[in-house]
């Protein structure tokens, strides 16, 4: 099996995913074009050499329908021979794209692949692709509730309190602001510009400098009404018959934010890198996905991490840094507590609670952040993982070379 390497990685800043957000006026295709162009320029990429453009995108409808990967690559001026594939593994789609690319390279079926993700949550509303996951037939067979209910169920089962999640959220904000304002993200961020070249957004827009425990405590739980008055909590008893009252701790302040962004990285074999004069920044050591119980939904990172370590023949202590998507604070806290990780080594530059979670792009973004952090701190290995709808988990281990 060949090794797959990351040669470079870029992303747009994350814009607030509402109609007041800076990137609301930008087509998702243009977000993707922005990073595809930047990647080509930074790596002096001959796009004829690109054997696939694999892009994660969750809500593949409206402007994100009809295989956005292909049309963005074409609009970015990539060679016709560079095809496009849009993948959906819910929240891990961006990491899935990277893993798929790495697998193609490792298998020897491809030598150079662009992988990443895109999501404009302001323009293409989460859930507007509707889908089958809440069909009664699915409900009666398996059980299916909105993620926020699962997040609160997780907090309840793990004894995670409102204070715990708010404290975690505040720390995420603090780290994100510090990282953003000290320019830690600049290396990988490409500003989004309009057709005139005028800047639309240059830095992550979501973090809040005015965050405090007191203010976080004022926020109303997001899923309490849905859970208690509309029966969602009861639906979980199909699998958790003993939980008679869910503690609704998650609020907009301690859950991931809706944002717009795109990210891509260049992945390929050592041979190809040498031929093109590209210096690998990291090797992809393991790339896995697995699943767990779907009603609780959000515990996937745990088995995914164990599986990745096993495939890599590594142990937890071999990992220098962790990036765990902060879909909800309880997810991150569960991960920390269950695996006994030093909080300083996880999400060192904050996470999706402060920076936002552009569904299909997040996996590629946080892997990029992990890579930048390894270089910044001169460390070697990082594990990136995300929880996923339907109870899945995806994880990727990288090692600097």
């Amino acid at each position, binding site marked *: 099996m060949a090794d797959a390497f990351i040669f470079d990685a870029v992303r747009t800043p994350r814009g607030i995913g509402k*109609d007041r957000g800076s990137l*609301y*006026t930008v*087509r998702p295709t243009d977000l993707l074009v922005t990073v595809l162009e930047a990647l080509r320029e930074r790596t002096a990429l001959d796009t004829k050499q690109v054997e696939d453009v694999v892009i994660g995108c969750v809500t593949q409808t*409206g402007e994100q329908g009809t295989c956005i990967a292909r049309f963005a690559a074409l609009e970015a001026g990539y060679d016709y021979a560079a095809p496009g594939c849009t993948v959906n593994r819910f929240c891990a789609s961006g990491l899935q794209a990277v893993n798929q690319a790495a697998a193609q390279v490792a298998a020897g079926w491809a030598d150079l692949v662009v992988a990443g993700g895109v999501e404009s949550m302001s*323009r293409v509303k989460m859930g507007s692709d509707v889908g089958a996951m809440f069909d009664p037939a699915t409900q009666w067979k398996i059980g299916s509730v909105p993620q926020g209910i699962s997040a609160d169920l997780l907090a309840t089962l793990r004894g995670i309190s409102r204070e715990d999640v708010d404290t975690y959220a505040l720390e995420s904000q603090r780290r994100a602001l510090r990282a953003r304002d000290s320019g830690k993200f600049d290396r990988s961020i490409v500003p989004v510009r*309009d*057709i*005139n070249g*005028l800047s639309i957004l240059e830095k992550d827009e979501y973090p809040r400098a005015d965050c405090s425990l007191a203010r976080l405590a004022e926020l109303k739980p997001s899923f309490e009404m849905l859970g208690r008055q509309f029966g969602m909590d009861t639906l979980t008893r199909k699998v958790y018959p003993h939980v008679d009252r869910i503690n609704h701790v998650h609020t907009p302040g301690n859950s991931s934010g809706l944002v717009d962004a795109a990210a891509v990285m260049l992945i390929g074999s050592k041979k190809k890198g040498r031929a093109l004069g590209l210096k690998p920044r990291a090797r992809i050591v393991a790339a896995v996905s697995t699943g767990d119980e779907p009603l609780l939904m959000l515990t996937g990172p745990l088995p995914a991490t164990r599986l990745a370590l096993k495939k890599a023949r590594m142990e937890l202590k071999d990992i220098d840094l962790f990036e765990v998507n902060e879909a909800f604070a309880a997810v991150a806290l569960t991960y920390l507590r269950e695996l006994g990780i030093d909080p300083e080594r996880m999400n060192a530059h904050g996470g999706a609670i402060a920076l936002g979670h552009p569904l299909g792009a997040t996996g590629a973004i946080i892997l990029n952040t992990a890579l930048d952090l390894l270089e910044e701190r001169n460390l070697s290995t990082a594990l990136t993982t995300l929880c996923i709808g339907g109870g899945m988990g995806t994880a990727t281990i990288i090692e600097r070379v």
Partner: protein
Amino acid sequence: MDETKNGAVKLSFDQDLGIATLTFQMSGKANMINDEFGAGLAEALAWAKARPGLKGIILASGHKDFCVGTEIDILYQARDVEELYRRVRAVQAAYREIETIGVPVVAALTGSALGGGYELALACHRRIAIADPRAQFGLPEVTLGVLPGAGGTQRLTRMLGFQVAADFILQGKVVRAAEAKEAWLVDELCGDREGVRDAAIAWIRSNPRATQPWDRKGFTFPPPAPGTADARDMVLVGCGLLYQKTAGAFLAPQYALSAMQEGCGLTFDRGLEVEARYFTKLACGGQAKDMIRTLWYHRTAAEKHEGLPSIEQLGIEQGISTVGVLGAGMMGGAIAWIAAKSGYQVVLKDIRQDALDAAMKHCEGLTSKRARHLDEVGRRELLARIKPTLANEELKGSDLLIEAVFEDMDLKHRVTRETEPLLAAGGIWASNTSALPITPLARASQHPDRFIGMHFFSPVEQMVLLELIVGRQTSDRTLARALAFCRQIKKTPIVVNDGYGFYTTRVFSAYLMEAAQLVAEGHNPALIEWAARSAGMVIGPLQVFDEVTLTLVRKAVPHGEKYTGRRLASEGFELLKTMVDDHKRYGRAAGAGFYEYVDGKRRHIWPGLGQVVRATPERSGIDLIISRLMLAQCVEAARALDEGVIQRKRDAEVGAVFGIGFAPNTGGPLSYIDRRGIRTVVRELEALAREQGDRYAPPPLLLSMAEKGERFFEAVDQAG
């Protein structure tokens, strides 16, 4: 009555009604959008808002027109995208302020509202217009290479839906009051100014809580709604229809469609940003500059006869009241008709009754089709002003005789000798010819100083251009009188010096002959046609060939050789000869030309062409063909300038664009050379001359300009 500080807006408040009337009366002859307007509007709105008991606002005009749009100088001079974007956003914000001010606002359209002026009306809650047939409404921005940037793409689309809005915005369609009402561009028509005001007051009183539809909760987009499969299909078809018209050569309607589609999927306020970005891109770009220069500045200067002698200036009192037209062919008949339509008494003379009958029938057709504003009586009077006759004597006393007989020097000489004496004392003689030089034509004249060339374009009733040719002895007084006639018949003149083909026919021939040459060399005819259109040429050259007939061009080439002494024969000409002489492919009317025709409809390139042409070019491709077709015309235009046929650069541009369908997106042949870069063009011409012969040789003027790094026109866009 109060006034804004800059005097742009008169302010009045009727305390009984609670209605503020803001009357725009900017310095100058018309209201237009500029800094004075912006400041005036802001001040006026603030003043109105401060009136206690305000119940409504009327936006009115103290000029003839309501508002005619953005001051073109601002557009033409804008080159800093950041600054222009900011300015556009400021206008958008000011307009937004109108529709969200909290009381009903009515636009009292007592005259034309165009472009930014109509957008101002769109930002009001109601548009009440005067039923004056002269008043015009619409968004003509794309015709100058830009798009409506003050909310027009967003408001009209939300108001009338994609299809209707696209119809107006993408074509820059401007309509008169009645049609504007029919299309809901205006809500209400009233007979006079007072009626408009009364209706505005009445509407305000019965709609005290007026808001814009897009600001109401539960606003539904006129179907199909953005984001639906139906809307996608409609926009896709919109792209297709647009491309059929533009062949991708015109950026403005393309960006306008993008702005409509993208902006209408967003909240109204953010949709405006999308529009502003596309507007800025266009307005600071080269295509808009080139189009504005020619289609606005040069055209306006030509329409105003700037720099040309006038009867007023020369103190000529003798007017023209009767016009004689000699020859009742296609041209003669139509010339007689437009002269009659403009109020002249016309005598139409021919030697054949059937020609006269056909011409009169044609005039009747034109009257019913193109004089719809006239009632039955008016139409009858129009036709009665044309007197068809076989008798020369009827021409006696004509102030102007326009000769429109066959393009034959001897025939024209004979007609001149026979009829010139019938002119009224001091009357002028005009020869309608598309190529024969005027000076030799005037040899048959007793008064060569009163002899001028008047090149009409077909179809006369549609084409705005009139090419006036000054012979060696033509006097300024004659030119001034011809220009006065030109103004009366509402044509736009270019005035050129004598020489075979004058200006337009030379450039036109270069276009056609280069296409024939390309075909003869074996370039794909379909590619030649598309190359021309994608460069912006209004009609592909082979289609033009079929329209003007191959026969005519086949005859014209030896003519040209005779008069210019230049050898014009080429493989292209040989091909023409073969087409006409051996294969009887005369053109569209014959049902056989470069194209095949079925029931008079053009189908496809004649398949037999493949047998006639056996050559294969060494290199081909769309870029090569575009270069050849465009540079062949440009070098001819430059030559005409160099030789003094063209005296004013504007005439080279206006003549080419309005006379022969030269790519309007480029601004004309000289603008095209500037845009391509004069040094590049000279290099390309020299290479082509080596390969293709002298017809590509750059004239001395171009060589010296290239050497000095000069341009024909000042660079105004970013790229320079």
